[in-house]
């Protein structure tokens, strides 16, 4: 027993390490391993749903424990809300028509309208330091990479990978995420970068002369062909000027409730061919996007 220890585990560690490093390299630089990833993720999908089940059960319990009185008051409230929304919608339809006429006069392109699909975030605690979420809709339900995820108050992120029954969303608070935006008040355009979980976003490369004020609403500008135009991203929270620095330090609070929303909408948007052509002519599209459509 005492001398049974095989000397082999050092060699095994070494060979497995080399294998794993090779795997990491292959996964980073080539797309060979997507099938491996897909097979494993399909196998793990039941676990992801199972982990989300307790929270769903709690929500269900909350609903079923509600009294008739509570439900009926909620119902009347909702009916009132629907009425209000419908009135507002009537005005909006009118305005939309007017808007498209004006745009035609100005010879500018039509605004794109998206199709919406409801989805739910699976409650899974992913590793700290990665701002990703998992949705309960996947390729089988028609989700594709590059779709935008919004909640009731603004942009949450974009779909970065899809498996048959789930899909992965990169939140706008992730350091890898960047969104081209424009100031709703002044029309000033800039980029928003994520700065990590639970931290304000950052509006970058804004010089001191730019027309940006605290409280300004920032909307997606539609440049870059990833996020459609006109969705709220955040509100300018704090502007800091450091003498000697070329750019200001601007903090932005995300409009969407990134850590609280569970019911979200997937937006399917198609940029028109004409729009695409114009953007390429203006040099606004990177080369990679010219040949193939929205690609990560």
């Amino acid at each position: 027993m005492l001398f049974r220890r095989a000397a082999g585990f050092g060699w095994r560690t070494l060979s497995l390490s080399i294998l794993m490093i090779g795997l990491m390299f292959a996964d980073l630089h080539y797309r060979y391993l997507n099938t491996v990833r897909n097979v494993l993720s399909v196998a793990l999908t039941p676990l992801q749903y199972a982990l989300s089940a307790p929270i769903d059960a709690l929500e269900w319990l909350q609903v079923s424990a509600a009294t008739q009185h509570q439900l009926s008051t909620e119902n009347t409230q909702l009916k009132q809300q629907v009425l209000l929304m419908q009135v507002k919608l009537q005005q909006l339809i009118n305005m939309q028509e007017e808007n498209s006429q004006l745009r035609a006069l100005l010879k500018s392109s039509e605004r794109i309208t998206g199709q919406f699909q409801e989805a739910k975030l699976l409650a899974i605690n992913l590793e700290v330091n990665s701002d990703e979420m998992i949705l309960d809709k996947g390729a089988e339900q028609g989700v594709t990479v590059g779709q935008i995820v919004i909640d009731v108050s603004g942009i949450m992120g974009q779909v970065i990978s899809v498996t048959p029954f789930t899909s992965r969303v990169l939140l706008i608070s992730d350091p890898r995420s960047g969104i081209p935006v424009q100031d709703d008040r002044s029309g000033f355009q800039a980029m928003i970068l994520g700065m990590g979980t639970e931290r304000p976003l950052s509006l970058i490369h804004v010089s001191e002369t730019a027309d940006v004020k605290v409280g300004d609403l920032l909307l997606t500008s539609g440049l870059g062909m990833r996020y459609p135009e006109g969705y709220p991203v955040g509100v300018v929270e704090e502007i800091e000027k450091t003498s000697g620095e070329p750019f200001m330090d601007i903090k932005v609070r995300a409009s969407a409730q990134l850590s609280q929303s569970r019911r979200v909408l997937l937006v399917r948007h198609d940029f028109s061919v004409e729009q695409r052509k114009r953007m390429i002519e203006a040099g606004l599209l990177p080369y990679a996007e010219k040949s193939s459509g929205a690609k990560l």
Partner: protein
Amino acid sequence: MNFRLALLLFLSFSSAIALQFLPVLPLLAPWVPQWLTLVAIYWALVLDDHFSLSWICFIGLCIDVMNGSVLGLHALALLWISFLVLKNARHFRRAGRMQQILEMGLLILAYQFILWVLQGVMGQAVLQWKPYLMSSLSSAIIWPWLSLLLDDIRFSYVRLKDDR
């Protein structure tokens, strides 16, 4: 390896994965202990040279898929931590409780340090370092209870010493 031991291994690892990904309040998220690494360390100490490094790599790959990280990242970190544990198994087994708590904290910190370095090498910026300390601390504190619990279950269901 007998059937009961295999079942126990499967159950302990799958519940560790489940605990790792269990939804918690955002405030508590950085305090979630590294359940999977702790369970891996426990079985490395118990099984010694019967401990399968290939299986630990496979489990690491599953974590990578769940997390969406580069395939092999967690597998490599788990592999190296298991190697460290196997290499110093006798030392860890002889250590007193307080010493074990301290060393587990350091091991978990090393595990996260490996992840951090690998992610850095691949150019994926990791901005916050405090969660690493927090989860190392909670892992170290949870270790004595976890090992006692697993010991208890193991002694009542599997006779390991007779099998060898």
